[in-house]
């Protein structure tokens, strides 16, 4: 799985962008988006997904169930 940003709730504050260890977050059309190919849910980097931890709006950086769970390389 990956995280996604709920665009309607995003304040475009950009706090998440530099926190992402995978450089998966970019600005698009005024809000920020997570590239599901790059997101690792911060597994192997930090205890919790950084985008969700720094986001000022609750439940805006959330797990995207459309993708399979991220598997850390063995």
């Amino acid at each position, binding site marked *: 799985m990956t995280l996604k940003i709920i665009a309607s*709730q995003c*304040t*475009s*504050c*950009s*706090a998440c*962008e*530099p*926190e992402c260890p995978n450089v998966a977050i970019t600005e698009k059309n005024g809000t920020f988006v997570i590239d599901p190919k790059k997101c690792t849910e911060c597994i192997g980097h*930090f*205890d*919790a997904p*950084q985008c969700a*931890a*720094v986001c*000022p*709006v609750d439940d805006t950086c959330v797990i995207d169930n459309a993708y399979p769970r991220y598997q850390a390389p063995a």
Partner: protein
Amino acid sequence: MTSLDVGTAEAAEGVNAAVAMGDVMQKIAEHKGCGTSGGSGKASCGSGAGEGDLPTEIWEKVKNHPCYSEEAHHHYARMHVAVAPACNIQCNYCNRKYDCANESRPGVVSEKLTPEQAAKKVLAVASTIPQMTVLGIAGPGDPLANPEKTFKTFDLISRTAPDIKLCLSTNGLALPDHVDTIAGYNVDHVTITINMVDPEIGAKIYPWVFWKHKRYTGVEAAKLLTDRQLQGLEMLTERGILCKVNSVMIPGINDKHLVEVNKAVKSRGAFLHNIMPLISAPEHGTVFGLNGQRGPSAQELKALQDSCEGEMNMMRHCRQCRADAVGLLGEDRSAEFTTEKIMAMEVDYDLESRKAYQEKVEEERVAKVAAKQEELATLAGAASDIKLLIAVATKGSGLINEHFGHAKEFQVYELSTSGAKFVGHRRVDLYCQGGYGDEDSLETVIRAINDCHAVFVAKIGGCPKNDLIKAGIEPVDQFAHEFIEKSAIAWFKAYLDKVNSGEIEHQERGDAEIRQGALINAA
């Protein structure tokens, strides 16, 4: 960095030389002001009046900084550039989703800027408003949670507009990590928002902080925040950087505690303490707005400010402005400088004409202080315990030069036998719209200045005049376009004479309301 420092220092020296004569005259003119007009001692002196007993190097730093000197705020303008959208903490009085052009509160902006856009905007504003002397970065998030954008902006501006003072306003969490960089850019004014020094109280204000890749909550978060804030404050004052501490007064949560905060920041070398009323309304969507947490009344705020006044300078002229505000503190001209407009502007940054203009401003200031001193001398020997408040309609320059119906705010002065002291301001909705009076907004104005005995205006219509008299507030228009303090002292002297002769009886006034979220511009 080296060439940058040299450039800035040289330019600063040039500016100082140009105004040196004005300074000397001003020091002479204002020196007496401190002992005699301070009201309750040193407090209104350092930030309020002239140089007083401030060391010369500090006076040089604050004399044309509208936020650090009450005196300066009548004459000099500031601007904020919104280059720092990210924040590293969450406050219960802040909602980042909210953005409205008609709102005037910290954390609210109409558009974000890149450092390059910000630098262009600064030049455009500096060329249009020659009394704009200060560039601040105050968000809309936290400048130090966006260090690259913040410092890039300072870098660009210090190269192109070296006479402009740089300052920033932070929650302090990341401050200790950046103190050396701040000093390196010659940022000599830093504001830290400190609402508590007790983590138990902090837990009621801050739901979380984000630090070193982790979100902390509750008392642990508040402990981390207060430790970092106080450490950052100490590091700044050690380096001779002037620090202002902003505190939001939240009745029932930190109102009494702010006296402790005052002591804590004073002992760590803070220069100025700015206690501001909580802005809280349900429509702001903040935690405090939604849970019904009220802000303080005008009397509650003044009582707390008065009780903290002692060795410490108190700021009472803060307008709690937006992170993209432009202009004198009581006005906001940001709508004139949207990105679209500034990008189309031909900017000619003329340091010489800015200097010349600012010299004129200094002359105006000296004249104002001299007028006050002269009038104050006539009060000498008058003995009375009477202290009262008056409201003043002004557009700046220390003059009574605004029509009652056009005033977007009133400045409040406390009058006593020791003189006239600025003690605050009240925002009001425009009373006059389209040339005819609107009763509801007149009531709003009366509630906002209900603790005042008189309101000084350049002009006032017959209807509001009668309503003010009915409400017990004397409309005073005979000092139109004259200096505020001089006029106030003259009026007060006449008032005392009338009380002493038994013509009138002095009565205490009631409390007044601090308005939430008034308009920023005359629509």
